């Protein structure tokens, strides 16, 4: 067992996990009468792969949407990099270095793969409209730099062959990969992935798992992901939050969670009463 001290630790496979990067404190989210999230707290440490699991409708996506600013919780606080985050629009959250993918894929269908990934860098482009017109050289240099970074990510995720293909023509599995590439292009501090492997065949799932591990390993990106496939989650993640009916029923290492009775009950469908 690792010693999870506040300042961080080193995992069995030699990755460095740091202190708390993000902390959710007593989050409650309601939609009218439906309580999607009830008083949930958990933290995400720098450099770790943190999973959120739970049965359908447990509130996993809602939690990701709270983190990325798409949903505003009625109660609770979000702490990021040691400071309480005021209420923010999704685009402001993105500008703070939190990138995400969606359960139902949200790509720019009319654009090519390359253009899609380039949009991930919009926030990195400093040059404004006026200076773009005046200092053409500076804007060009910036464009070239951005292109290089994007090409690296495209190589990394092995989608060179479809660089110029309009996204609308791609099969589902590749779309998921392009969406990951776009999120990575922002060089985020935290990467949020909502079911990155849903709807994939075994081979595609293996590829995606490898990419997620490589991203975390090579870029040191902190990742928070939602996944249904228990096997995958146990392999990938350092720590797991388990949700059921909007409540947190478990939190810990994969081994700890696996042996947690409440978690076993939720997954075996023991009746709730």
């Amino acid at each position: 067992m690792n010693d999870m001290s506040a300042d961080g630790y080193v995992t069995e496979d030699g990755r460095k996990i740091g202190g708390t990067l993000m902390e959710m404190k007593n989050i409650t989210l309601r939609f009218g009468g439906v309580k999607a999230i009830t008083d949930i707290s958990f933290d995400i440490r720098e450099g770790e792969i943190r999973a959120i699991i739970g049965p359908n409708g447990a509130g996993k996506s809602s939690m990701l949407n709270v983190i990325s600013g798409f949903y505003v919780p009625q109660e609770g606080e979000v702490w990021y990099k040691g400071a309480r985050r005021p209420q923010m629009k999704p685009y402001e959250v993105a500008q703070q270095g939190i990138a995400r993918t969606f359960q139902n894929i949200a790509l720019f269908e009319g654009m090519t793969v390359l253009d899609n990934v380039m949009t991930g860098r919009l926030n990195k482009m400093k040059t404004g409209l006026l200076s773009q017109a005046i200092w053409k050289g500076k804007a060009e240099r910036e464009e070239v730099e951005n292109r290089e970074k994007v090409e690296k990510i495209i190589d990394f995720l092995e989608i060179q062959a479809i660089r110029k293909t309009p996204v609308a023509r791609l099969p589902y599995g590749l779309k998921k990969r392009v969406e990951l590439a776009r999120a990575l292009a922002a060089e985020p501090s935290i990467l949020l992935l909502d079911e990155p492997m849903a709807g994939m065949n075994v081979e595609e799932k293996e590829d995606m798992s490898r990419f997620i591990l490589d991203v975390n390993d090579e870029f040191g990106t902190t990742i928070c992901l939602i996944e249904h496939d228990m096997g995958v989650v146990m392999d990938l993640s350092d720590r797991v939050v388990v949700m059921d009916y909007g409540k947190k029923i478990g939190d810990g290492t994969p081994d700890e969670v696996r042996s947690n009775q409440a978690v076993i009950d939720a997954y075996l469908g023991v009746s709730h009463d």
Partner: protein
Amino acid sequence: MSDQLVYAMEVFLNGLMAGVLYALVALGFVLIYKASGIFNYAQGVMALFSAATLVGIMKGQVPFSHLINAIFDTDVHHFGWHLPALAGILLAAAFMVLLAWMVQKFVFRHLVGQEPIILFMATIGLAYFLEGFSDLMWGSEIKKLDVGLPQGINLWIDETTFNIFDYGFFIDNLDIVATVIAAILVFALVLFSQYTKQGRAMRAVADDHQAALSVGINLNFIWVMVWSLAGFVALVAGIMWGTKSGVQFSLSLIALKALPVLMLGGFTSIPGAIVGGLIIGVGEKLFEFAIGPMVGGATENWFAYVLALIFLVFRPQGLFGEKIIERV
């Protein structure tokens, strides 16, 4: 060369120039429609309003003077200055940005996610509001607009064509200038949307709002920007038409000319708006020239619509519009 062919060439040229202006107006629609799914019925009124504002600013007219005088029993009309055209145009452009911001803040921000038909109705309301507001602010009389654009027959073309064909073409200098300016503006808009950060963000917003938010694009900013661009386009169109036939209510009807252009070119396509504008400009002038005399003339009033309707039957998505695929 036969006389008819030479006349037809002259008509063709005039049609081409009218077409560029139609394209410009249509572009105003396409910009907003692409980025927000709003069909902006008020585009024509925006041209009227911007041109009236330009006249008012240049003349140093006191805005709402009628209202002010009625309430306070005063007699103010002018500030007593005259601004040069360039300063007037810059101020009018700034005014269109302000208008764009207000339209977004007070109307469309509250309608995000509504059905297209509701957004469309809102723009109809906006059109009537702006029309009335323009009258209230600057008065409703026909205003003369002169920003120093050349007008009258172009003598060089007249002489040159006379030497070649024995028949001098009548091409108005204003049309030439309008064509050049419109062409530059269209070109600039295309460059803007393809190669700038904001242009890229604009295309992203046009494609998918949720995805755009997730990469950190401020939708509100983009929408204000798009309405501002549409405002500039309206201002340029307003200046051209206003110089030609005075700033008056009929100016807002140029929007009706853009409608068939959009049907032809597709509501979402910038190249479509350009090509559609040219086809309709040339088509209606040539049709009037060739067929007009046989049917008693005035075909220009309906030709564009008939052409667009025929086109709709065979290619409902327009020349370059995105293909409509029915999902079942």
